[in-house]
């Protein structure tokens, strides 16, 4: 029995090493130079940092967002990063939370490219508005799903339909979050949508094999972006305290992390310790990334450490009860001393 197990493990290890070596030599790394990259949420934060990175590598870049002022500033940054005179750098103002808008924005962005479909579509648009569930409104709940899931889904629909119709074999890159792997208090209007994006990406990775369209999905942790600053203005204090020790990365670092993940050919892309631990601990049926040893080690770390982390988080929440009750009473949610 032990001999069988050893043989099995040895064969497995051999198979993994062979496949890793093969993929290292066989796959040409994705090169953005001369390719059209379409980026939603491209006027600030991760989207903008990505747009600048890709511009520097010689790509044609279209950024889409709502605020025209921010778009103008962003476009100026892209121009400053231009490396060849014939790069096509454009910005478009659209609110992408409907299918119609998503299709129209994409169509318009294809015009300067002779009607050709973009080679890569980066779905960075999104935002978080943390709060306590019982204080949410119907509108805030719907908006939460719009600003996470639907922003991604409609553009993914527009992009995949167009790629199939024009028989172009491009890439679609989703952006979820560590809160698409797990959740904790305060994120009831954010985590569901980010989990939903994961579900969609999993399904599409498989389905789009039918059309040779590649899918990636990025799970960042905290990014110190303008969006993050906004989010913290209304974030419950307990959540701010819990996240204090988390640290974070700049949008430029995040963009680098995402880009490298695409180059490695990773399906799920994580570039932080937190991200790696949760990615390897929530595998489900997700194909694993190339470094077999790393996956196994992080998986073990998660298996042992996460229950302790969760217990710690739970204890903090329980300890917060009296303060929370006071807060709810003063907010009129609870009638004082029933």
């Amino acid at each position, binding site marked *: 029995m032990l001999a069988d197990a050893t043989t099995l493990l040895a064969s497995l290890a051999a198979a993994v090493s062979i496949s890793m070596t093969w993929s290292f030599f066989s796959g040409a790394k994705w090169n953005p130079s001369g390719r059209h990259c379409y980026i939603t949420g491209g006027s600030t934060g991760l989207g903008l940092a990505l747009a600048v990175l890709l511009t520097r590598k010689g790509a044609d870049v279209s950024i889409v967002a709502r605020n025209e002022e921010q778009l103008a500033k962003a476009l100026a940054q892209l121009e400053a990063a231009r490396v060849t005179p014939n790069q096509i750098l454009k910005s478009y103002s659209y609110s992408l939370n409907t*299918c119609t808008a998503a299709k129209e924005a994409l169509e318009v962005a294809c015009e300067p490219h002779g009607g050709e479909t973009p080679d890569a579509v980066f779905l960075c648009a999104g935002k978080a508005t943390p709060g306590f*569930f*019982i204080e*949410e409104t*119907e509108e805030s*709940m719907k908006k939460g*799903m719009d600003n996470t*899931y639907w922003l991604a*889904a409609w553009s993914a*629909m527009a992009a995949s*339909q167009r790629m*199939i*119709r024009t028989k172009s074999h491009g890439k679609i890159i989703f952006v979820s979050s560590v*809160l*698409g*792997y*797990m*959740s*904790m*208090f*305060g994120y*009831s209007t954010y*985590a*569901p*949508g*980010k*989990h*939903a*994006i*994961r*579900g*969609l990406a*999993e*399904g*599409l990775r*498989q*389905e789009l*094999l*039918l059309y040779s369209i590649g899918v990636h999905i990025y799970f960042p942790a905290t990014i110190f972006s303008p969006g993050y600053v906004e989010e913290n203005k209304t974030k419950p204090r307990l959540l701010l305290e819990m996240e204090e020790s988390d640290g974070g990365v700049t949008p430029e670092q995040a963009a680098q992390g995402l880009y490298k993940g695409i180059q490695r050919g990773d399906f799920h892309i994580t570039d932080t310790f937190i991200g790696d631990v*949760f990615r390897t*601990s*929530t*595998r*489900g*049926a997700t*194909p*694993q990334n190339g470094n077999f040893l790393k996956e*196994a080690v992080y998986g073990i770390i998660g298996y042992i450490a*996460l*229950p302790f*982390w*969760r217990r710690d*988080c*739970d204890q903090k*929440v329980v300890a917060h*009860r009296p303060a*929370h009750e006071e807060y*709810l009473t003063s907010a009129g949610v*609870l009638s004082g001393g*029933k």
Partner: protein
Amino acid sequence: MFWSTKSWDAAGKHCYITGGSSGLGLALAKMLAAQGAHVSIVARDEQRLARALVELETVRQSKAQLFQVFSYSLLTAEASEAALKAAMERHSDVTPDAAFLCAGKSIPRFFVEYTTAELTEGMDFGYWVQAWSAWFLAKKMVAQRRTGSITFVSSTLGLMTVPGYSGYCPGKHALRGLADTLRCEFLLYGIDIHIFFPPTMFTPSYEEENKIKPALTKKIEEADGGLTAEQAAMGQAHITADFLTDSFRVSSRGSAPSNGWILDGVIDLAARVWIPLWSTLTDRRVRAHREGHYQHLQEIGFFAF
């Protein structure tokens, strides 16, 4: 913390069950009625609700038990609130002790073939139909300073997916995100959150679903088997009711609590071997389907744009 098991006695408790007129919800309703609970069922179809009420009566344990049925479509916030209020009326407007949010259905299709309405509906039937109920329930429970439990019903497709379910699995994943958030957040109020991941259940809903399911999806699901609603209801005590789903639960647990940390580890080890093999095989099946699929797209006029 790691190995606590709470057993719960349903006798005399008010159980609120959405999607309770058929399938899993009905099986659960009968199980709880047979244990002596008061049961309120919410669903859309009035005929089915009437039949469900008759079935509940067959397992009545005492005259004191109150069985109610209500016809509402729970896709909107408004309706979800009205349904809950209606169910609470005869219980002195006090919140239920336990809610089982079984309402939902799936519309399988290839992603690029969904209409806008269908994709939107997919999230309505997968996520909102339960989220609204949970939201009103929670607000009421906190305002009344009552504890209790809320159980979401996701799916194996809330832990992983196969081709053909992109209108459904995002909603089911979203439920997991919500449940994980609330499990933690509701420690503030002493309200318990559970989430159930049933596999294929041989129910009327399943038959409806199979009428439109893509052939490739059926092929991938071939070897799956499934449970009857009754079997699934029995499994509810342990989050998953079948080994396949349990493997996915365990390998995607992340920071969610587990019932058995050691057993989970053992299942996870096995999962690390067989799941990647399954995944590779499934990918191969998808690739093999390419030609057939392109023909299908031609036939439905996808390229005639």
